[in-house]
């Protein structure tokens, strides 16, 4: 177990290293970072000063060392627009993003799990096809368009819900729906295939042979075990939701991390963009590590693999 965790943690560190290298590389290669770091309209002397200040006139590997050094000190630079450290900005927005993701997750599970079970119990019949269609729609509709149409219907025509901003629980409803829609489809698909796996197993056959009513077999015996992969995916997806909510947060002006990223893009606030991407990637790498360790604890067979 200890060796397994060490190896996984090693891969994780390697991933973080590659992540920082990728971001560093792209910023330096695709143009002069000084041009991105100064505010638009700066003079040539200002740019030269920035070059010196950030050590851009030094060799690349020294630059990378400096970049990592500041990173290790939790310093992601200063936002141009807000004039505050990027890390503080990120942390002040994180609770909003988490709240939105949590509500969207609850919605996606409420929709995804029952419809997945229904589809698995009625394989190849009407509810299965309906579920398949729903999943396809979930994958084919851009979430920002779902958001815009929701605003059109519920804010402009019906005037039931506020179109943007935050503050009351009502503000949460539409963004959570737009964000959760895609994930509901994913959760439905996984619930269905996981239920089918379990329903084909020996102990379900035994439960049926014992003469248990079908509803009990599905609700008590199959559902419990089929839920494990779904809950795992949901855990990972929660973190992914926080990171892909950019468009939904932009549409609804929800003050989360995605909105911060969008502001970073529009104001050419480069440290913010870089910081959000770095922290988001790191968050996902760490959650993957956590899931790997959790799985290895539950299922000893995994430790022997690879």
């Amino acid at each position, binding site marked *: 177990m200890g060796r397994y965790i060490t190896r996984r943690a090693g891969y994780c560190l390697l*991933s973080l290293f590659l992540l920082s290298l990728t971001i560093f590389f792209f910023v330096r290669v695709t143009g002069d970072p000084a041009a991105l770091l100064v505010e638009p309209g700066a003079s040539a002397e200002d740019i030269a000063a920035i070059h010196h200040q950030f050590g851009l006139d030094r060799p690349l590997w020294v630059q990378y060392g400096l970049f990592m050094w500041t990173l290790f000190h939790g310093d992601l630079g200063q936002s141009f627009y807000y004039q505050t450290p990027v890390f503080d900005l990120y942390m002040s927005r994180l609770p909003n993003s988490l709240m939105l993701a949590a509500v969207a997750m609850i919605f996606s599970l409420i929709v995804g799990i029952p419809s997945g079970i229904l589809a698995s119990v009625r394989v190849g019949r009407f509810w299965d096809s309906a579920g398949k269609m729903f999943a396809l729609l979930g994958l084919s509709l851009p979430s920002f368009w779902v958001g815009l149409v929701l605003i059109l219907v519920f804010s402009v025509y019906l005037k039931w819900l506020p179109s943007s901003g935050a503050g009351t629980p009502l503000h949460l409803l539409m963004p959570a729906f737009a964000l959760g829609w895609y994930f509901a489809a994913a959760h439905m698909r996984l619930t269905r295939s996981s239920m089918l796996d379990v329903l084909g197993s020996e102990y379900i056959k035994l439960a049926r042979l014992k003469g248990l009513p079908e509803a009990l077999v599905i609700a008590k015996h199959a559902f419990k075990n089929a839920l494990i992969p779904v809950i795992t995916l949901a855990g990972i997806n929660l973190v992914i939701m926080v990171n892909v909510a950019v468009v939904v947060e932009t549409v609804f002006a929800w003050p989360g991390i995605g909105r911060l990223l969008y502001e970073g893009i529009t104001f050419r606030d480069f440290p913010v963009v870089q910081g959000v991407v770095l922290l988001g990637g790191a968050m996902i790498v760490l959650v993957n590590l956590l899931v790997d360790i959790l799985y290895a604890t539950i299922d000893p067979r995994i430790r022997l693999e690879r």
Partner: protein
Amino acid sequence: MSTPSDVVVLPSPSPTPRRAVRRLAIRFGDFPVIPTAILLAVALVAIFANQLAPHNPEIGSLTARFKPPFWQTGGSMKYILGTDQLGRDVLSRLIFGARVSMVVGIMAVLVAGVVGTVLGILSGYLGGWVDQVIMRVTDTWLALPALTFAIFLAAIVGPSMWNIVIILGVTYWTRYARVIRGEVLSLREREFVRLAVVAGCSKWSIMARHILPNVVNSAIVLGSLMLGVVIITEATLSFLGVGVPPPQPAWGLMLSDGKQGLMVGYWWLTVFPGLCIMLMVLSANLIGDWLRVKLDPQLRQL
């Protein structure tokens, strides 16, 4: 295809024309006709955009701003689907937008497919440190949320249609690399590859002539499924202002423009481009699903 005379009759084992028809029906009976027709129509519209569009998509008349579609009061047949905030014809912009979506979608899938397939084959066949390096990079990039990564790249590279193609290719090649590598791992243990080694083929010719043709099927299936993802990502980037630059008519950009008129109830600026995206992506996904079942049953778990 439905009449027996069109069917090539094979000499053995003496299938009657009717049986051949039935076999074709089993193989292609569930062919997704409507999605294919939609994608073909979009492709034709994209090609003949210059002939089809009734107005110039980038120049509008400011006297005709925010005109509704023709069936609403205030609309006219001159602007069938209405006009936007600069008085540009929505229908013409949709038609030219099809061109952007098609070109970006197909080119990005090609770039991602070629890069991912080549790296997947190298990784799977050569093994060793090459495999280690390629797979570590793939894992890391897969871990990043694709959308955030694409936004990040687009924000530093700057907006242009061809930049978007490269960015999407760079973002999505990892999915090909993973799947293709897995296929190659099992292919390289097969008899025909071993025989080729015995016959003295070089590594490169084995990869190019024996492995590649066997993974093309999977690459095509993945490509058709990726088309939808890529089109949505392009629309998202354009919507956020880091995709196709403004005067050009892209569907994502139109949605972004339409946001201004949304609260006042100018619904046509939001509904029509979104419907176009949905139709195209849904069609691509349906065709991809069909191809997946037909060409590669092993990929069903994907």
